[in-house]
């Protein structure tokens, strides 16, 4: 099963009955045009996408001036969801492995840095969609612990990209009420980035609209090991005995303790690779996994809606029976 999208019936115009005001829908979308230009490339490699990509401007009722909020601070308007999606079946926590920037750049004859920058644009778009549709937590795998073996030039570029990204978007996070947290072994990051992350986390600590968790220098194994080390420390201090250690105790020491919903309902991995690559191992126990063929910079609203439709149809039994 290489791509769920091929199992879905093509979405035709009849499912998108609403009128659009596209330019105001997507914030921070500097190169919207650039991404749309990439669609011919996409359809060259994956012809079936043409049926989906034909409705490039997804249509919705635009009510952003009259946003009503529920008590939880989540937008209550129903009309902004694409047709066919039910609010109650949307995932609360979405995790993404953002794979394929390098391949995207190579296919276009662009430098690697362009691929990563396009990836950042795709991330901003996804964040906006999650915020708009009331998805509470979005965790993204930006840089794995295994990625440190990449060439220094690329690693330095990525560290610079993260720093620039956080600096530029911090005001927007505050305005859009997005909380940002960074998980992973921050000791290997440049000092300036560490300081910036600490500041950003502090400033956005009380935001509730969307929680963006960025995994940088992260390893699922490392997460579990550091949780166990913390527990060992507590045992040493007499706060807890070894017999008191349960799954919940470990859970509370994992880096995802920064959110009340540490378990993703949905994991998306782009670029067609079929593996988890040491991301959120413990937390993925019952997560629905979606592997899509699109490269990360090409993953946009259309593809995300397809995945959500598919997620809606899955039966989650948690080992029991229907």
């Amino acid at each position, binding site marked *: *099963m290489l791509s*769920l999208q091929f199992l879905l019936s093509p979405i035709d115009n009849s499912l998108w009955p609403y009128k659009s005001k596209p330019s105001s829908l997507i914030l921070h979308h500097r190169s919207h045009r650039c991404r749309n230009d990439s669609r011919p490339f996409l359809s060259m490699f994956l012809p079936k996408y043409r049926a989906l990509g034909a409705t490039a401007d997804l249509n919705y009722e635009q009510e952003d001036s009259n946003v009503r909020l529920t008590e939880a601070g989540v937008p209550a308007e129903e009309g902004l969801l694409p047709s066919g999606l039910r609010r109650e079946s949307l995932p609360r926590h979405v995790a993404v492995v953002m794979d394929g920037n390098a391949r995207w750049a190579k296919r276009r004859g662009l430098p690697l840095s362009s691929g990563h920058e396009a990836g950042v644009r795709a991330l901003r778009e996804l964040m906006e969609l999650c915020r708009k549709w009331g998805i509470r937590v979005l965790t993204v795998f930006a840089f794995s*612990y*295994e990625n440190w*073996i990449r060439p220094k030039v690329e690693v330095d570029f990525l560290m610079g990209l993260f720093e620039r990204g956080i600096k530029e978007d911090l005001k927007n996070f505050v305005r859009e009420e997005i909380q940002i947290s960074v998980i992973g072994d921050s000791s290997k990051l440049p000092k300036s980035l560490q300081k910036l992350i600490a500041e950003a986390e502090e400033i956005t600590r009380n935001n509730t609209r969307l929680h963006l968790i960025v995994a940088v220098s992260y390893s*699922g*194994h*490392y997460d*579990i*090991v550091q949780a*166990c*080390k913390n*527990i*060992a*420390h507590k*045992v*040493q201090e007499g706060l807890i005995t*070894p*017999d008191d*250690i*349960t*799954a919940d105790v*470990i859970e509370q020491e994992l880096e995802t303790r920064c959110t009340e919903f540490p378990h993703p309902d949905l994991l998306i991995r782009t670029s067609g*690779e*079929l*593996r*988890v*690559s*040491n991301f959120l*191992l*413990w937390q*993925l*126990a*019952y*997560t*629905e*996994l*979606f*592997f899509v063929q699109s490269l990360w910079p090409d993953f946009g609203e259309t593809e995300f809606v397809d995945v959500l439709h598919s997620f809606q149809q*899955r039966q989650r039994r*948690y*080992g*029991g*029976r229907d």
Partner: protein
Amino acid sequence: MGDDSIGGRLSEFIGNLGGFLRKFIFSVLSVGPIPNHIAFILDGNRRYAKKHNLKEGDGHRAGFVALLSMLKYCYELGVKYVTIYAFSIDNFNRRPDEVQYIMGLMHEKIEGMLKEESFVRSYGVRVHFLGDLKLLHQSVRIAAEKAMRVTANNTKFVLLICVAYTSTNETVHSVHQCFKEKRRPMDKFQEEEQQQQQQGLIKLVDLERNMYMALAPDPDILVRTSGETRLSNFLLWQTAFCYLYSPAKLWPEISLWNLVWSVLNFQRAYPYLLKTKMKRY
């Protein structure tokens, strides 16, 4: 009567031809790297029974037949370790009569394993049962422990059967074992030294060493049938870099071609995975 013997010889011939064809396919595959360890989540037995209007229990029995075929193919291909997710701790939440049925089936099959003509004997398979075995019905636990004892000296092929297992439970158990290891009587000097090293009290290697699955290397391929794409708390630690394959077929329908396809895809991803695994800390 002449027809019968011709019919018999014909089916024997076709059977031999099939075996010959399989050997040929496997020798072609062997040009590339062969996975050392394949794990299977046997999903879809009940849906299979429903699809073919069988009793639910017959779906599990059909699943067992499919399992034997898969084990044979893996053995012939040169795979050394096979792990199967036979029964999760979460599955205890199912209807009591279904749980009872599966326990009974497991008991029957474990006893069957120990017989002379079983695949375990003929292929020289070492069997391990992994999980919180205390949760099993006593008769099943006793049979499992006996099977582990009896096959302890087999070396050609290792079958790891996860029963009453979840990854979460395995990790918690490993943590407890780590503490037991460290809780040896110490003199004052050792205590001070250990306090200084308190941050190193539990390391990655300690955790890994105490996992149930430490008996085998990490799986190279994880196959989950019936089209569901989730891990269901199976081998979460061990599948960090594993190729995940989820064919739409139900478990009793799984075939040689699924195995061949998964090995081909494994071979395609192999160079990248090798590079990643070698640089892990």
